[in-house]
């Protein structure tokens, strides 16, 4: 099969066109946010929030409100719970995070299994971009617009917050506000990512492109662009590959992302393994 056919043939199906466009969009949005997540050291937080949104998704379904709203409430709620437990007990943060998100996730599992609904557990866990509904597409677009818009406006303040929150406070910025902005975006994009790769792999969308780009650049703007490019590339290629091999779309997307990371890790001009060993 020639290469053009490989790319063109799947586009005859409407579901493939939708899937490619949606996963590309989700790739862009998650990658843009992933730069902040990796620099702030929030990978574990991303994992926690993405799992904790599960009961919110189920409850939103029951109440017949947009899933994003339920997910958002539980995503932010889980972080507030983490902060509360950390502040009031002597337990270390990583333990608290592990404890809270698994608790939320387990609650979600129970809800799904006991409440009568048409939610398919495997779709939530592993994504279902090939069967994405028009409502979900609209929701993803809205989330993307909110996230990219917020990042565009607050970019410099968020960078400063991630880099040096003491200075941010000392020039009068509201760091609590910035913290919750970042957190809210994390909850929102977790919902978007959930549609494509599923809860289990969302965290990859939220850290891998940022980590790859971090190895390739010492400039935040370049890093963002590289992350977004690698995010889009992975989403599109992953979706194509999953079509051709008839495999899990979420899995394919994340595998491509991971491959890009490995390439960057070895070949990055300054921070790659080859460059490092050449220096020594």
């Amino acid at each position, binding site marked *: 099969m020639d290469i053009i056919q490989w790319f063109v043939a799947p586009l005859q199906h409407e579901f493939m066109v939708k899937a490619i466009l949606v996963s590309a969009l989700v790739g862009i949005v998650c990658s843009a946010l992933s730069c902040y997540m990796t620099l702030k050291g929030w990978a574990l937080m991303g994992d926690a929030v993405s799992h904790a949104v599960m009961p919110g998704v189920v409850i939103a379904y029951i109440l017949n409100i947009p899933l994003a709203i339920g997910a958002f409430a539980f995503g932010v709620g889980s972080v507030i719970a983490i902060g509360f437990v950390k502040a009031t007990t002597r337990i270390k943060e990583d333990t608290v995070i592990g404890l809270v998100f698994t608790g939320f996730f387990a609650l979600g599992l129970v809800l799904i299994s006991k409440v009568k609904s048409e939610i398919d557990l495997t779709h939530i866990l592993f994504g279902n971009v090939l069967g994405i509904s028009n409502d979900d597409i609209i929701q993803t677009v809205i989330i993307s617009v909110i996230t990219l818009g917020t990042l565009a406006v607050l970019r410099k303040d968020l960078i400063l917050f991630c880099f040096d929150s003491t200075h941010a406070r000392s*020039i009068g910025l509201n760091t609590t506000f910035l913290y919750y902005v970042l957190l809210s975006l994390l909850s929102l994009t977790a919902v978007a990512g959930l549609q494509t790769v599923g809860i289990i792999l969302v965290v990859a969308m939220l850290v891998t492109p940022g980590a790859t780009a971090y190895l390739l650049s*010492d400039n935040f703007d370049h890093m963002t662009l590289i992350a977004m490019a690698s995010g889009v590339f992975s989403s599109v290629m992953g979706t194509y590959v999953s079509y051709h091999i008839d495999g899990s779309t979420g899995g394919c997307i994340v595998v491509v992302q991971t491959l890009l990371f490995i390439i960057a890790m070895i070949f990055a001009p300054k921070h790659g393994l080859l460059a490092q060993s050449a220096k020594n």
Partner: protein
Amino acid sequence: MSEISIDIENVTVAYHGKVALQSASLQLEAGTICGLIGMNGAGKSTLFKAIMGFVKPTNGRILINRLPIRQVQKKNLVAYVPQSEEVDWNFPVNVHDVVMMGRYGYMNLLRIPKARDKSIVQESLERVEMWQMQDRQIGELSGGQKKRTFFARALAQESTVLLLDEPFAGVDIKTEKMMINLLMELRQKGYTILISTHDLASIKTFCDKVVLINRTILAYGNTADVFTEENLSRTFGGSIGDLSLAKSFLTQEERRN
């Protein structure tokens, strides 16, 4: 008499119930450089953090130019350089970016620098002789160069109240002299500068006032009156009375002159 610029009244700070600073009061006029002296753990950094509102005093009140600290910060009236920067040194920002962060308070929401911001950043970097290294990622700087970069950021803030927590720690003699000259120039412009340092030898060369601190303010006033052997020995728990130490501190001063 000029206007009171830093006004600290009866401030007590405790960490988890343990008092680190007891009933501190201090009034600083505009246009003065005040040295803050005390041994490790005396509460110098705590005083700075209390002024910046980063730790909440259990008692007392602090005003800068008669305003509470949040308003002071929003109006770009205060610049603070912590003892050690708690930043990620591998963060993808360069020296120029860091100093530009000192200008954010003057910019619109999108923080797009204007020509004036750029020229002040350049000027600040030139003052600390870091302009040549403006493109360096900050992790690729030496300890002293890092200190100079963050000092330049404080300069770029153009705030008339400067809080400097041990800015000379780890910088070479030449850089320290350069920084002292700069501070003296800023005093001429009416800046109020509170600076903690362990370099007792240089205090007399540039501080108008001195605060001696050990969990509370032991003495405060004009350098000539307060910076005495007797007071210092009180501050350092008698150790400065130790002849060898006093001598080394004298020879250090002589070396400088």
